[in-house]
């Protein structure tokens, strides 16, 4: 089992969700985050004083899947989130050793979906 963690542009979330749904991936967790990557920050100002904003608003997506679902999931995220511009974001895949469904205590592959 793998945990797929993606950082994407907030306004791409809807498209990503649609792509995931198309691939029958319905389970995920979504968190607000601030990101600093290759994308340059931008400048705001407040009362005439410049603010360098280098932590940009991002969405963090966590999706736990079985091995065979890793590729479809990653592809779906890319499909939904890619614009080709800096700031599109990044995907990390990490191993999961165990997964438990709280409701009934099921574990492992069956619990993840």
């Amino acid at each position, binding site marked *: 089992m793998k945990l797929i963690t993606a950082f994407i542009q*907030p*306004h*791409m*979330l*809807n498209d990503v969700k649609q792509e995931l749904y198309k691939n029958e991936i319905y389970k995920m967790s979504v968190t*607000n985050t601030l990101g600093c990557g290759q994308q340059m920050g*931008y*400048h*705001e*100002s*407040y009362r005439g004083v410049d603010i360098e904003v280098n932590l940009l*608003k991002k*969405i963090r997506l966590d999706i736990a899947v079985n091995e065979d679902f890793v590729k479809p999931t990653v592809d779906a995220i890319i499909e939904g989130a890619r614009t080709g511009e800096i700031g599109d974001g990044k995907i990390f895949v990490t191993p999961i050793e165990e997964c438990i469904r709280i409701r009934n205590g099921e574990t492992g592959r069956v619990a993840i979906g």
Partner: protein
Amino acid sequence: MKIKRILILTAAGLLLTGTALFADDTADTLALYSDAFDMIWLVLAAALVFFMQAGFAMVEVGLTRAKNAGNIIMKNLMDFSAGAVAFFAVGWAFMYGSTAGGFIGTDQFFILGADSAVLRDWIFQVVFAATAATIVSGAMAERTKFTSYLIYSVVISAVIYPISGHWIWSGVGWLGNLGFHDFAGSTVVHSVGGWAALAGAIVLGPRMGKYVEVNGKKISKAIPGHNMPLAALGVFILWFGWYGFNCGSTLSGTDLSISHVAVTTTLAASTGAIGAMITSWIQFGRPDPSMSLNGALAGLVGITAGTAVVSPIGSLIIGLVAGILVVLSVEFFDKVLKIDDPVGAVSVHGVCGVWGTIAVGLFAVPGALDNAGLFYGGGAAQLGIQALGAVSVFAWVFILALLLFTIISKTVGLRVDSKDELEGLDTSEHGMESYSGFQIFSNM
């Protein structure tokens, strides 16, 4: 004898003079007091109406997204500020200057030479002009270029509003002469704002993501407002200010119909809220807060024209109908016409403004106007005049505003680009955030 007679004559003479002098003094004082009544009444009413700007700002901020809150505030602040200067320079003149054929005023630019009475009337009128102007910002929220909005503000306060206002409120306008009755501005103020808002919303087009194609059918999506407490506060402020708006429109502090106006205003607002709540409950299965808030405003807009000439029972009905109407109208514009009006300004001010105007022709009690309303056996005479007025003002405002927004759109551009819209106007137009530090899902 002679002396006595002379004495008597003298006494009588003195008496005459004394009484006359006293009478003169008293008359002067009474006249001063009359002026003082009107002065404090209208200035306080004007202050209340001014405060409605805060109400509009809060309603519009509350019913839109957090990422555009600062922009909305700027629009509300600046449409008053720019509008006031424009109304000072030319608006007042077009509205209340000597008439050219009942269509437009022609003098008193910069209210030069105004005495205290004219200044008093100006302060009361400028806040009405600003109300008409600010209505539009809600319908055009979350996607309009700030510069373009400024241009619009000046034009409506300087030209559009004053001219139709002249027709009705100048005392010499063609509609007023026909007997058109709009006590405090269901048409003069609210419809003008509402129809300009409609034109703006049409030319602008909907916010991104508002209407989505699903299986070849465009369906309407909700874009929830971000701050219901502020929206509610705004409605309470508006209602509060409306006591200045309607009661002040007696234009006189010694007019004892003030209480009648206050009562009908209160009742119509109440049944407006009730009507909208019930309608939303029936339509959507739950009593909807933002619709109920709109309902109170709808009731207020609805009663504004007839507040002085309808009975309390009449006001209950007018408000109730306005409350029902506003929900249906919001749905109609959103789901059928697919015109995106984030705060329901067109329905509240345009549609219910017309309803209020028409309602005068239905509910005017006998004796109040030349003709009683239809429901009081006065026939359709007043109704016809009211309808004529509503249509004329609609045509004038809607066409001109459509033209204005189209010109702006073709020249400076009316709409921010889509990246800026997604990001929010606070950052793109003003380079700041309205809720710094708060964690907000900006993808909504």
